[in-house]
């Protein structure tokens, strides 16, 4: 490393470094590093984004992931490029959140802020690039879930809303509303045991896991209903059959994107989801 040094022995910090533009790379201690186009804040400027962000929100067991699988296939069959996104999937920090949750030794602000880190990492490195290139991003939950979970744990709304005010709001948000009892049946079909976090056991609501699950999901649902009202989500009855909910979603998305044909039958690979 060569340091510019003035005659008095101090490094010369006033000398301007001349760069060669256009290479897209910079040199850092002898190694080449790509210049970060994302330096700065995540954009909220729609004119830079030709794609569309569509979010499905709802409690555990509301059928979000099933609907996302079906919508992805439908939109791709209509010729749209689709990128999906979900919570705790960032390269940066997802694994660390998993191990924290497993150890159950984390405090509420720390957990909320780690989820926020995970969210913004995906927003900046996945969602915004996809939207810039004109893709449809289907998000299996967005920051609303993170707000609802943290509020239920005693953090205040304003604190969380102000953290997420740097994030792009969705173009369309659907809320799949189901009663906790129905959600429980569905979750139990998926895996034959209820998890610590699904039951909100960290909140010490009840030692009975069923009671705990129902109480926790009821609290979350209340938050979602209030978020839905404030942010203008399209609320759908998630207890309807999957194909009914899917037809409703397709109708609304088609009208937003200007797709005329909303007829759809899942392929052989997804037909098992079609009830």
């Amino acid at each position, binding site marked *: *490393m060569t*340091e*510019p040094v003035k005659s008095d022995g*101090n*490094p010369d*910090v006033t*000398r*301007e*470094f001349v*760069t060669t533009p256009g290479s897209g790379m*910079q*040199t*850092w*201690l002898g190694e080449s*590093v790509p*210049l*970060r186009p*994302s*330096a*700065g*804040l*995540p954009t909220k400027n729609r004119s830079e984004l030709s794609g569309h962000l569509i979010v499905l929100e709802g409690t555990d067991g509301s059928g979000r992931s099933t609907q996302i699988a079906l919508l992805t296939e439908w939109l791709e069959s209509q010729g749209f490029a689709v990128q999906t996104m979900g919570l705790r999937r960032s*390269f*940066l*920090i997802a*694994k*660390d959140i998993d191990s*924290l949750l497993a150890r159950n030794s*984390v*405090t*509420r*602000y*720390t957990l909320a*802020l*780690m989820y*926020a*880190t995970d969210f*913004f*990492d995906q927003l*900046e*490195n996945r969602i915004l690039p996809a939207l810039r290139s004109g893709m449809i991003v289907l998000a299996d939950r967005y920051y609303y879930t993170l707000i609802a979970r943290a509020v239920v744990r005693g953090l*205040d709304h*304003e*604190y969380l809303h*102000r*953290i997420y*005010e*740097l994030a792009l709001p969705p173009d369309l948000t659907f809320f799949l509303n189901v009663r906790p009892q129905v959600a429980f049946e569905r979750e139990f079909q998926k895996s034959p045991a209820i998890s610590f976090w699904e039951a909100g056991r960290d909140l010490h609501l009840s030692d009975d896991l069923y009671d705990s699950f129902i109480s926790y999901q009821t609290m979350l649902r209340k938050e979602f209903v209030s978020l839905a009202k404030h942010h203008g989500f399209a609320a759908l009855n998630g207890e309807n059959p999957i194909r009914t909910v899917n037809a409703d979603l397709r109708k609304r998305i088609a009208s937003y994107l200007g797709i005329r044909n909303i007829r759809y039958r899942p392929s052989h690979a997804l037909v098992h989801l079609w009830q």
Partner: protein
Amino acid sequence: MATSSTALESAARPEEKRAKPPARPYSGALVVVEGIDGSGKSTQLHLLKRWLEVGGYRTYFTEWNSSPLVKSATRRGKRRRLLTPVTFSLIHAADFADRYERQILPLLRSGHLVLADRYIYTAFARDGARGCPIEWLRNLYRFAVVPDVTFYFRAPLEIAIHRILSGRPRIKYYEAGMDLGLSLDPIQSFAKFQGLTLARYDEMVPTDNFVLMDGTLPVHQLQQKMRDVVAEQIELKRYKNL
């Protein structure tokens, strides 16, 4: 919010804070040193700690960025240069929250004199220099109590930079603010980034009750001032070991 004594509120409404001192939910006291690298703050806090320990006070020292909890993510993000201004700020806030909730606040609640080498103002200055809006940063950290005394060590940029560069073989990527594209040369970038950070600190002097410390003064003279201020602002006898 559970406490009314928060950084956000005190800065947003300074007149209100003076009119109605917030109730403290803890019996401890918090002394903070802030300033850019090479300002001499860590040396001074070390000497203050010695003085308090030898004097027989219940003292605890804590420093920025020492929680093992998010260390692996922070290391991964820094090594692979994945961090943006927002995720850099959030991951450090998560780290601070862990230390705050599990260490600083319990110590304050149990009546300790807590000495912190850097506190929330480090994030305001450094992440602010990276382009995060200051109101966003103040909100992010508003769960943290306002310190009893905040010493701001200020040395001219050239002196601070010289101190750092002469003591270190290389400056790390994010430390030099290389992610901002200020310069392709790490030393140049480091100098510019420290300059931006220093300007953010200076802006907080009136709003955040900083005790300004001239980092060019002799060590023992600064330390005497520090001890005088601590003795004046904090009722030290409450923290005597039994």
